[in-house]
């Protein structure tokens, strides 16, 4: 999977959203919607990236003990997209492959959050280890 921080990719219009309470996930959805509309993503693409953000934001809150989202507009030549980095200082994920499996949850959820967010994004990256927190990054590119 390609990396949105790779050479040739520029990031701009950085915005940070704190995730401390479930109302913050609502604010996150609104912020992502505004950005997706500004970028000219189609209605289905908007819905997918907002839904992915909602799933990952809830994970940050529920499993990471809160954290933040960094939203940027990414540019690769003439291509544009929205990138979201979900960052927490929580307990981390010991087994990432297992956490990505549909139906697996360490909490009370459905176990669709991580895998679902990955399917709803063009790029997906996760960095985590026990005690070191978690960073999940997704990108949705506007099609040509």
């Amino acid at each position, binding site marked *: 999977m390609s990396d949105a921080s790779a050479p040739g990719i520029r990031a701009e219009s950085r915005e940070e959203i704190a995730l401390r309470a*479930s*109302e913050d*996930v*609502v604010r996150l*959805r*609104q912020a992502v*919607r505004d950005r997706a509309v500004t970028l000219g993503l189609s*209605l*289905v693409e*908007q*819905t*997918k990236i*907002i*839904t992915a953000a*909602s*799933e990952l934001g*809830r994970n940050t809150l529920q499993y990471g003990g809160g954290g933040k989202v960094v939203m940027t507009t990414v540019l690769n030549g003439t291509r544009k997209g929205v990138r979201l980095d979900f960052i927490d200082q929580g307990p981390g994920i010991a087994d990432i492959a297992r956490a990505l499996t*549909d139906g697996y949850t360490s909490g009370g*959820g*459905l176990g*669709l*959050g991580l*895998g*679902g967010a990955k*399917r*709803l994004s063009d790029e997906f990256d996760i960095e985590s280890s026990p005690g070191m927190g978690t960073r999940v990054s997704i990108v949705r590119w506007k099609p040509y």
Partner: protein
Amino acid sequence: MERIPILRMGRFLLVTIQVDMHDQLALTLQDDLTQRIVSDRAKGVLIDISSLDVVDSFIGRMISNIAGMSRVLDAVTVVVGMRPAVAITLVELGLNLEGVRTALNVEKGMALLQDRGL
């Protein structure tokens, strides 16, 4: 406390979700509806989600829970008005809302409840 209003129409309960719900609000609606099915002796529940531009796994689970709880309380739940982009996203997310009755709009949803002779 913030709440989604539940309207009663004969033997049916009607809910129109018009705000972007945070998780606690969704849980409150689930509890309120379950209580009202019993206290109002409702035979049907109609939930209009036409104003929702996002249904994530949490809201999806709430919808499934309401359908399941109403079933064991001898009532039928119909979810109406799902937007096409929401349907596409829900299925890709991995949620099929199995066991949840749906209709395209409020009119068809009411017809579905009434056809059951409830």
